[in-house]
């Protein structure tokens, strides 16, 4: 093997410019792959993060509806016509059982039981309809990162202290420490204290969301111990549909919604982006392979005399072809490493441009995978030239003249 490696290296060194050109060619190809691959993944990550970074991946609600009010007073409560009754989704009473069950799942990273309701904020003569989310701060933080996103005040929700969206605070002229009145659907009013304002980087949430303590919220809405939904985040958001499917089977009386179901269009866009990226990468690898193959094919012809001589002196067919396979491998390895350097340089210069909404990150695992594929392509590319060299007739090379 050492002998073959020595031959391969000397052959490559003897055609310096030829070797250099193909290495640069491979490097450019690998660099483009790394750049493109990282760009697409980072772009998708940023898109997905924007979509689901601060919301539940999977939401569990009760599967049953409940009639809250019939519209026609003449009709008895038992007799319902379509359209004559307001129904809302029933709350989940046995939520702590479900939470315990989900907590055992390995993929689950956050479980936040939530009681959601609507109310009116009245302050300084202005009314504003808002969404109340009753949560346990520690659990909700895992999904919404409220504590990290406070713009004023403290992330404090207990008793009558609530945190409110930053836009809402601004519009209503509320600052931390201020009081405001909350008008509940059942007609009651409660006075709350602003603990602070948060910015979830989502305008709808910022202008109409209020987080409160779950227990307090349950009391305000008279729901007993029930919650309206259980919000869940999982480690790999792209397994949401699988996991949701599993839970649909295993949990009774619960409606399971996953973000993928609700964002089909985004997913289609992402997957077509990925497949076009793979297509480009495939053709880059193909042209790398063909490039290496053609350089080696020329090299076999150029070195036919040397090969003949080596064979006359007893080099076996296997050994001869190994010399060329090693060259293919070496070209692949050298080109890949140069390509890794070049690719990371490209990413760095891209990231240093200002005003980008996201930065490209790369994963060493992917970078080395690409390098390994390019190296493997080198070995594959050398197979035909290697075969040719193995079958070369030494007498042809030694012939006088």
């Amino acid at each position, binding site marked *: 093997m050492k*002998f073959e490696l020595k031959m391969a290296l000397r052959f490559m060194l003897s055609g310096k410019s030829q070797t250099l050109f193909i290495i640069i060619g491979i490097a450019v190809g690998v660099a483009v792959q790394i750049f493109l691959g990282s760009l697409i993944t980072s772009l998708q990550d940023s898109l997905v993060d924007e979509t689901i970074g601060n919301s539940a991946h999977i939401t569990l609600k009760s599967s049953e509806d409940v009639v809250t009010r019939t519209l026609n007073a003449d009709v008895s409560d038992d007799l319902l016509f379509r359209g004559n009754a307001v129904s809302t989704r029933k709350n989940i009473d046995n939520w702590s059982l479900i939470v315990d069950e989900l907590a055992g799942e390995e993929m689950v990273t956050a479980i936040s039981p939530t009681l959601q309701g609507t109310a009116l904020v009245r302050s300084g003569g202005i009314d504003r309809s808002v969404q109340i989310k009753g949560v346990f701060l520690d659990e909700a933080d895992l999904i919404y990162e409220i504590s990290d996103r406070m713009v004023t005040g403290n992330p404090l929700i207990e008793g009558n202290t609530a945190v409110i969206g930053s836009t809402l605070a601004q519009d209503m002229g509320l600052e931390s420490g201020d009081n405001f009145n909350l008008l509940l659907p059942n007609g009651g009013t409660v006075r709350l204290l602003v603990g602070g304002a948060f910015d979830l980087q989502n305008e709808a949430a910022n202008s109409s969301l209020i987080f409160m303590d779950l227990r307090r919220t349950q009391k305000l809405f008279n729901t007993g111990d029930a919650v309206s939904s259980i919000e869940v985040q999982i480690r790999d958001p792209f397994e949401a549909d699988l996991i949701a499917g599993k839970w649909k089977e295993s949990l009774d009386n619960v409606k399971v919604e996953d973000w993928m179901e609700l964002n089909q269009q985004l997913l289609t866009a992402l997957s077509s982006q990925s497949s076009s990226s793979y297509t480009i990468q495939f053709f880059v690898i193909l042209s790398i392979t063909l490039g290496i193959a053609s350089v080696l094919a020329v090299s076999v012809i150029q070195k036919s005399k*040397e090969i003949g001589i080596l*064979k006359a*002196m007893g*080099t076996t*067919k296997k050994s001869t072809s190994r010399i060329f396979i090693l060259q293919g491998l070496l070209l692949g390895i050298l080109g890949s490493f140069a390509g890794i350097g070049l690719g990371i340089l490209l990413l760095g210069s891209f990231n240093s441009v200002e005003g980008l909404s996201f930065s490209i990150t790369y994963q060493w695992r992917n970078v080395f995978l690409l390098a390994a594929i390019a190296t493997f392509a080198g070995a594959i590319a050398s197979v035909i030239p290697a075969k040719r060299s193995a079958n070369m007739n030494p*007498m042809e090379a*030694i012939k006088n003249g």
Partner: protein
Amino acid sequence: MDNTLLMGQNLVREYGTEVITRALDDVSVKLNVKEFASIIGQSGSGKSTLLNMLGALDRPTSGKLLFRDKDLSGMNDLEMAQFRNRNIGFIFQFHHLLPEFTALENVLLPTWIESGKADRKREARAMELLELVGLKDRMKNMATNLSGGQQQRVSIARALINDPNLVLADEPTGNLDSDSTDQVYELLRNINRDLGMSFLIVTHDRHIAEKSDRVIEMKDGRIINDYKTKDRLPEDLWECLAPNNCKHRRTA
């Protein structure tokens, strides 16, 4: 003890599938241990074909080839390659050194092929051989930085490194000037005498053939003359080695 090193019996070599050319036509030849023989003949007479076959570079279409008691005609490619590496030293007309390597590395090539790696002991032997061919001070030169004669002497050292039983040379002095030719010839002769290897040399050069132990003359794929040089008078021998064959000369 049997003194025979190599024996070919009724060797036939044909080329082509539709139009068949017979390059060797029923040739039987025997080469003894320590013999220094020349093969002469016009181009196309089958000299190189015979040499390649005796060197296990080629297989006969029919006939039998025995090296000592081993039958070469039945060997596969791998066995033939290993056989060449251990038993045959080749010297070619255009020296055929590998330009990517130094003189010393070129001499060591057959040992690398044999064992797959470098070996200190063999390196010492290679230096000895380079000294023997008078290139001690050029060992580290790249092959391309040597003159034609020097390159040919390196390739002689290379042919000897694995201590072969037989050295085959195809026009070893074919493109050398007369001074270099003499040097190379003297070298081959000395090695034959001192190291005891058999030599078989294809040549166009009357001076070399004249100084061989034995001359094999070929024409149209057959051996038409095979004699020991000491059996002939010097003037007669010189005549016989002329481009045309012996018989023709005599009758003329």
